[in-house]
């Protein structure tokens, strides 16, 4: 049966931010995000309504991943935030709330959108320059020679998500585990190109959090292992254990044809001949003095029996997510075929033992020298475990990001209020030449700056969920919370004991004022100072890199969306256009810039299957999203078509396998506007991936990182190239 449908013309949405539907959706989304923010955030119960499992969370990645949003503007917004989270793990809610704040505040201004963009970009550069300067009062430097600041950083992340259901002792325990895990991943001998290792999280659900522990090396779950028996493992002359790692299935069904039919004569058993081949591999392994065989998939019981009888330990169903760290830790090359076995592919281990974390049993692989470790993570309930896992991964990632840039920002709303104070001070003292450069009046600048500051302060305000009053002080520009229902007192210092981040106490008079600021004229104030010494030992800290990126991402999106209004002066204006894909009902955004190059996008949803066919070593580095065509082609050629069988297996595979990786993108030169033949052939169709050229009018967007983020959600249709061009010209 075929279905015919008239082709719909491309749709152009002008003024995407106006209209009741958008503003209602926006305020609903921002309501959900704001109510989830911070350590006292309210939880959201996500489920499919037909009996699926329930996720109780306040994490942006989980929330945005589950919401299917139909408003194009909000889709761009959530795509930007999700891409930010995939790269920095932290500050997702911050980015999203700030972004909503910018849209809400800028929309109501009576200033031309193009001017808003220019002024807000200038304000952003003021913020970024301030954050990067030594004099910045809302950042602290991280000293890796002592754990103090690191503990604060990890603690802040662990306590920011209440659905983990942790008490004080448990937070302390996990903080030390996360730090230990991080230390394990730092190589001993640092060379010029030091690469941090990996911490693999092993789930043990239903047990107490304090039962969590960390071990160097890797653990493979082995339900069949016999406890109490000593492990007899064959070692080589140099007293190491040789390990062979198979990524190919050894279950003995390799003769299954993917297509077509195999005809065999009566009496010939394909199963038997396949098993004989497997046993030959076994013989080779025994001859090569291999002591441990690990298979990602299933091993035939006869092969396991043969290996066991010959003193070789065999472990199957290790799972995809262990393969990369296993190969890296043991130095072995995953063997992808049972027909070729080269001695160079074996790796080595120092020791093997059995670890038991009731009710699970694991084989513990201990290497000589490792940057790989296993965090056995326990929590009482499944939903709390899931939340805790995401939080621990975020903490590990944040520590790694902090190595690159040993700085942290003050949490608890203090960075936001401090930046707002700084911007208010700075915008009141700008020279007239600035306004001339920006082609705007001083009043316009002040209006936009006030909207900018209110957006920042709205993030700090989102930390309050029980109608607490929020104050800011005029000296340091920090954020202070007054508990709800407080009595009337003459002095604010009687009500507040310390600021949100814990840096300042109430000992001196800091001339507090309300952080409402919605009405009345902007307050003129001095440049906020840097606090001289901290009061509390435990500061609330945020990841520097993640927050800086969040700030940029959140501002990149809304002002440009504003520029789509009919008043957008010319094609030269930098702006994001949203084009509805008539056929699939999905949106495309196009960054319109002069000059030419072709952007190839493989859409996020569809590329995941393709991605999974690649061996981990073939994965492009996550941060490297702009690739040359040659690179893309190399990867493309290495990928293969996934059969239904493998898809079925993958469905059975653990959740972790199904994690969506960032999409690929390529920018190639103008000359190759048509795609290479290989990329549009039958294989492409089978994979369900659509690859389409897209016209873009400038090389790379001015903000290199954020530019690529928006393009993540680009969806292409069959003749996207033509449409893309039309759309630009049509303007």
């Amino acid at each position, binding site marked *: 049966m075929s279905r015919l449908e008239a082709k719909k013309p491309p749709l152009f949405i002008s003024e995407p931010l106006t209209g009741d539907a958008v503003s209602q*959706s926006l*305020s*609903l*989304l921002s*309501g*959900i995000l704001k*109510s989830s923010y911070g350590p006292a955030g*309210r*939880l*959201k*119960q*996500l*489920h*499919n*309504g*037909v*009996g699926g*499992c*329930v996720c*109780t969370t306040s994490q942006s990645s989980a929330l945005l991943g*589950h*919401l299917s*949003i*139909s408003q194009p503007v909000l889709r761009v917004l959530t795509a930007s935030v999700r891409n930010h989270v995939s790269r920095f793990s932290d500050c997702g809610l911050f980015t999203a709330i700030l972004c909503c704040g910018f849209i809400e505040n800028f929309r109501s201004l009576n200033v031309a959108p193009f001017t808003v963009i220019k002024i807000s970009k200038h304000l952003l550069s003021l913020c970024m320059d301030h954050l990067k300067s030594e004099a910045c009062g809302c950042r602290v430097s991280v000293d890796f020679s002592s754990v103090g600041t690191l503990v604060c950083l990890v603690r802040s992340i662990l306590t920011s998500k209440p659905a983990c*259901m942790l*008490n004080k002792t448990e937070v302390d325990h996990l903080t030390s585990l996360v730090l230990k895990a991080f230390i394990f991943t730092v190589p001993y001998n640092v060379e010029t190109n030091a690469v941090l290792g990996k911490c693999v999280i092993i789930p043990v659900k*239903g047990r*107490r959090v304090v039962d969590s522990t960390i071990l160097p090396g890797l653990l493979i779950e082995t339900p069949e292992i*016999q406890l109490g028996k000593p492990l007899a493992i064959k070692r080589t002359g140099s007293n190491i254990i040789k390990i062979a790692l198979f990524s190919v299935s050894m*279950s003995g069904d390799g*003769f*299954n*044809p993917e297509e*077509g*039919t*195999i*005809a*065999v*004569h009566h009496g010939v058993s*394909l*199963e038997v001949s396949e098993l004989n081949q497997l046993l030959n591999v076994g013989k080779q392994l025994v001859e090569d003095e291999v002591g441990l065989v690990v298979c990602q998939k*299933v091993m*035939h*019981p*006869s092969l396991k*029996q043969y290996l066991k009888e010959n003193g070789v330990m065999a472990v199957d169903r290790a799972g995809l997510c262990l393969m990369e760290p296993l190969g890296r830790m043991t130095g072995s090359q995953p063997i992808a075929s049972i027909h070729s076995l080269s001695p160079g592919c074996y790796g080595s281990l120092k020791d093997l033992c059995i670890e038991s974390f009731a*009710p*699970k049993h694991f084989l513990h692989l201990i290497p000589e020298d490792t940057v790989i470790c296993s965090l056995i993570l326990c929590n*009482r*309930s*499944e*939903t*709390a475990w899931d939340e805790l896992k995401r939080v621990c991964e975020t903490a590990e990632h944040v520590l790694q990001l902090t190595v690159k840039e040993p700085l942290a920002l003050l949490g608890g709303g203090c960075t936001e209020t401090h930046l707002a104070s700084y911007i208010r001070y700075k915008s009141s003292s700008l020279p007239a030449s600035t306004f001339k450069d920006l082609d705007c009046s001083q009043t316009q600048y002040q209006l936009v700056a006030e909207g900018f500051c209110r957006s920042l302060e709205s993030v700090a305000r989102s930390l309050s969920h029980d109608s607490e009053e929020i104050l800011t002080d005029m000296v340091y520009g920090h954020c202070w919370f007054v*508990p709800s*229902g*407080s009595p009337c007192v003459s002095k604010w210092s009687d009500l507040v*004991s*310390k600021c949100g981040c814990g840096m300042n106490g109430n000992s001196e008079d800091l001339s507090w004022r309300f952080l409402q600021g919605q009405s009345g004229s902007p307050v003129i104030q001095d440049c906020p100072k840097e606090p001289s010494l901290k009061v509390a030992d435990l500061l609330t800290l945020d990841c520097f890199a993640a927050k800086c990126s969040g700030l940029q991402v959140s501002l990149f999106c809304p002002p440009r969306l504003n520029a789509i209004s009919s008043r957008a002066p010319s094609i030269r204006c930098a702006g994001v256009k949203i084009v509805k894909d008539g056929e699939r009902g999905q949106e495309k955004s196009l960054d319109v810039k002069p000059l030419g190059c072709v952007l190839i996008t493989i859409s996020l949803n569809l590329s995941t299957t393709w991605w999974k066919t690649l061996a981990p070593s073939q994965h492009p580095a996550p941060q490297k999203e702009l690739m040359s065509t040659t690179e893309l082609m190399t990867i493309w050629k290495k990928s293969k078509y996934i059969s239904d*069988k493998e898809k079925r*297996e993958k469905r059975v595979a653990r959740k972790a396998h199904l994690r969506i990786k960032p999409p690929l993108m390529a920018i190639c030169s103008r000359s190759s506007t048509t795609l290479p033949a290989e990329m549009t052939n039958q294989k492409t169709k089978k994979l369900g991936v659509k690859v389409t050229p897209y016209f873009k009018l400038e090389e790379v967007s001015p903000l290199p990182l954020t530019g690529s983020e928006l393009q993540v959600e680009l969806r292409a249709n069959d003749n996207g190239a033509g449409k893309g061009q039309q759309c630009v010209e049509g303007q």
Partner: protein
Amino acid sequence: MVCCPLPMAFRDVNARRHIGLQQLSSLASTGRTFLGPMKSHKFIVDEITNQSTLICSAVRLIESLDVTRYLATALSHGNQTSMKLLQSVAAYQQERAECSGSSQINIAEIVTCCVLGLPEGYSCVSPGFVTLVSPEQATVIKHFADKPLRILLMDGDLTEQYRHLGFNRPRNVRTILEHPSPQGGNAGDVWLSRMSDILMSFEVNLVLVKGNVCKNLMERCIASRILVVGCVARDVLCAFGAATGAQAVTYLSQLNASCVGNGAWAELWEASDGRAVDLGELVPARISAGGLALLTAVLTTALPCKAQLLEDQFWTLLYRLHHALKDGKVFPGGGAVELLCLSHIQALAEQTGRPGSNKAVRELPSPWLAEYKSIVLQALASGWKQYLSVVLCNTAKASSELEASASVDHHLQKAAACGSPSAYILEEFRRGGVFRGGCDPFPNQVTDSKVCDNVAAKTEAWRRALDLVLLVLQTDAEIITGSRRNQILNSPEHFAGLSQTGSDGSWGMLELKQGRMLTLSCTSATSYKQGLASSVCSMACLGSALQAVCGHPGSCSRS
């Protein structure tokens, strides 16, 4: 984003009158009837199949309920008169502890077998593996007499079609038959004779199979006097492997001499008085081997609907003992530890109520928060008190909740007056139980047996109950995802709380997962059985915690 409910409505979800908590509360009130040794059993009737089961644990209750119909109608299914716990179950544990000689109980070495048709008095513990076999298999066993048997263990199914897990059946493979064989024997017969040939050639007498066994092969084996038993648990296979030296195989074609074990024997199981066990279709048989570390608790009952109940009770008690030995300590039971907690919480509440008097107050960000803390503590205390009252009523030590409450107050006053509440309560416990007075029918009777509670199970249950309540309390919106379009249900009436979806909050060790079915958070049978042990306590405490936090301002703070 559908419907675009207004943000104000969205905020309204987080009202004090929390629907989710109310639903939890009603479920907990049912759980309370399971408290204490005198449980109110529930008779669960399946209206479709007309099968009925008697239950006495919260786990089974939740399992049997269609919670989506979230509750009142389901619970009104009658309430049979409470039945006495089987005294004999305690005796099994004693025997088990003596014969193992160690203080720890290895749960993996114990199995249960329900024998229907005998009175309950015939229940006993048998060394070895007792299972039900068909009369034909029983004939084979009779033939064995006292002969030592060669034993084979199989860890899959024993059928022609069975392949190991992860093996994909070939499709698209066509067999070409060039010369049709004149005999025309079909493929199934060939497999049967090959398999029975293998068994004969290795002189195997006994095959224990983890999965199912092909009927035709079973018949052939019976004809060749080979006993094949299917559906044998993995732990049993392991125990036989360790005792006889047999190594489990997946296919008979794998068999070599080293896989076959020696020295097993089989006999028909007899009741303690040698009474013939002729129970119709299935006959209990006992299979064992020298040094086999396996015990079977044979649970006999004349009522088929009680089989589940007996099995649950056995495992509950067994796990209690197991945990007590593992913890190395127990709580004074019969409400003693709860009374101690109650007196402690009350003391804390009073201290907090006095302004500026203690350390806890100074830890709070602002002094007037202490007021809330005191309210929360008092609410928690009233939750505990209700728990104790229910225990007293359920154990018939008080005739009404009012009387029970008065009795608790009386003890609390005495404990406070004595200066050291813990000393008072321990002394009372030593003298035969805290709440032995009141309307105890035999006030002068001195009992030697004291009631004790598990430490880890109880404290975990408290913590999980509180976690669950806090999780539900902190949730302000439900978001439906997936194929149906997204909706953010903005009215509190739609808040599903725990009962529709489970919210994945732990319930004891349980987790509600699907709208209808309730599954466990851990996949293993071990934790499932642990769940049985702790669920009652958890349900009750949940009730207490709910009482404590419902409807009080500032209750969200996790003090």
